[in-house]
């Protein structure tokens, strides 16, 4: 499937709100709320696929871009409508981990662990299971995968569901680290594009590496550059990488 999902970051926001409300209403720790946000995200993703994405998969590229852009606008403005632009946060904090002269913030350690676990699990899924192999086959060549008896519709449904469930579960991790608003989704969409382009399309471990590289570049840059400029670094890196390697650092056409 070749759908660039402009609404990806807005599903992160949805996950953040889900974890926030679980915490506020029933005191569920955001780490535990992963048990909800993962299946919830899958259901959301599957539903969006069936009602919206499926119908533009075969259209010219323009249409899925517009479609997901509209979806992004719809999600963020509905969240605004429902919850106002007020910032929200979960009053939960972790003691920093201090070892070997390095201080690691507790929340960051938890989120990073989750990222590694998710990336490894996703890789194993894509490499070892029949379904995972089918997804890769469709990614590589939709037509011949269909000839081999793979149903591209079902594959699309499942891969979109998995993508969105990861996005919403990231929302659960975000609330450990920062306060958020309905409008933060766009930033995450851009970040995830930068990271995927750096790490290579279709590679979960590549995404992990891409994320780490971006984080390191931003932090090193912050030693010399004013903090106000650092958010742009990722996009400058993105544009440069796209120019040098139009299909991503590790990806190929």
């Amino acid at each position, binding site marked *: 499937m070749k759908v660039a999902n402009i609404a990806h970051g807005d599903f992160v926001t949805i996950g953040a709100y889900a974890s926030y409300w679980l915490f506020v209403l029933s005191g569920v720790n955001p780490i535990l709320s992963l048990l909800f946000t993962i299946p919830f995200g899958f259901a959301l993703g599957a539903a969006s696929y069936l009602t919206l994405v499926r119908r533009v998969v075969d259209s010219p590229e323009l249409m899925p871009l517009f479609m997901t852009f509209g979806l992004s606008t719809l999600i963020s403005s509905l969240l605004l409508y429902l919850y106002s632009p*007020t*910032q*929200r946060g979960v009053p939960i904090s972790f003691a920093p981990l201090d070892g070997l002269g390095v201080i690691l*913030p507790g929340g960051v350690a938890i989120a990073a662990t989750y990222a590694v676990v998710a990336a490894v699990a996703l890789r194993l899924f894509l490499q070892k299971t029949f379904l995972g192999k089918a997804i890769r086959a469709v990614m590589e060549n939709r037509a011949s995968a269909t000839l081999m008896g793979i149903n591209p519709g079902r594959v699309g449904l499942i891969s979109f569901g998995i993508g969105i469930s990861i996005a919403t579960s990231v929302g659960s991790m975000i609330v450990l*680290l*920062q*306060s958020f608003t309905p409008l933060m989704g766009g930033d995450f969409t851009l970040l995830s594009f930068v990271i995927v382009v750096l790490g290579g399309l279709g590679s979960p471990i590549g995404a992990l590496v891409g994320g780490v590289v971006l984080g390191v570049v931003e932090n090193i840059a912050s030693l010399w550059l004013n903090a*106000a400029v650092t958010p742009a670094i990722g996009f400058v890196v993105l544009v440069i990488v796209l120019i040098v390697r139009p299909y991503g650092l590790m990806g190929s056409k």
Partner: protein
Amino acid sequence: MITIGMSMPLTGTFAEDGQMSLDGLQLWAQNVNASGGIYVSSLHRSLPVKLIVYDDQSNPTRVATLYQQLVTQDNVNFLIAPYASPLTLAAAPIADAHHILLLSHGGASDAIWQKNYSYVVGVLSPASQYMIPVINMLVNLNSSQPLNVAMFYGNDPFSIFVMNAAARYMQTQFPGKFNIVFNQSYQETATDYTAQLTQIAATNADVILGGGHFTDGETIMKNIQSIGYNPKAVALLVAPDDVHFYQDLGTVANFVLAPSQWEANLNYAGFSPYFGNITSQQFATQFTGRFNMQPNYEAAEAYATGLVLEKAIIDSGSLNSTVVRQQLNSENFYTFYGHFQIAPSGIQIGHTMVVVQWQNGAKQTIWPTSVATAQFEYPAAPWAGRT
């Protein structure tokens, strides 16, 4: 009928503050009309007020269109500015070109009064004043060593203006008392400030002065806690003034300072009789009863703006903007919101800021001592003992 036109940011970046401001003004209008309106002596009768309000979506372009509409179509008597400096700056040239009085309640940037407008009057303390009481309070600690100060603030006109004025004030008024060891602005939409805060921690700063808006202020505190950095005091703009600050951060919010234009527990009694017959506590009670939430200072300064207009209309006996604007030059009085007095440019010079601190989950006024409800807790307790 006295028509008062305005746009408010009811959606977009400033939506929350815009709604608060509008609520404050509507409460004022309701109170005025319930008491029979404002007496205009040149007309020999009292007239009710009517607010004409549009949503500007926090967008200066829309502000400009809407204020032109208010002046040319709705023919309003007076204008009230939208919340926030960039929006006020967009409304000001139109008000000035049409010679209609524009009262600013939420546009604090000093730049508003540096453009030689004749019809723009501020009710709130300008940006250059925000950090002044915090600095005075820190000097009052009488520490033998100079304090190491890290300045870390949002990259928006308001925050930049506040912090530049703060730096100037520290250097010119109290030479040798402060060392500025770090001075950077940040993008308020960033999601993580750990890198910069780690650098600040390495400078051994005693005090962090800065902040910008809501989300960034909360994230900064989360980040400071997460790296185990323990500055003696942190003073942030805007975010800690809001009740959400404690709801979202819990005990991490304790000890954090913020400058404030007004607090519900403030009592300016003893200076002069209240104008408008309303105290801070009465205002807060009425507001909570009507809108089912605590007013913050945005609501209070908006209500007070109504009072200022009311007083100037009564004292001048006119609905002519030029006459009322002239009258404001000679006004000098107190409302529940504090002192009102302006310089000829229209900038507010009477009103003063207070300092608040979160203490055990309650927001206390700690400076100036004459109106304080609690003592300044300094230095902040170590993180280990707090969670």
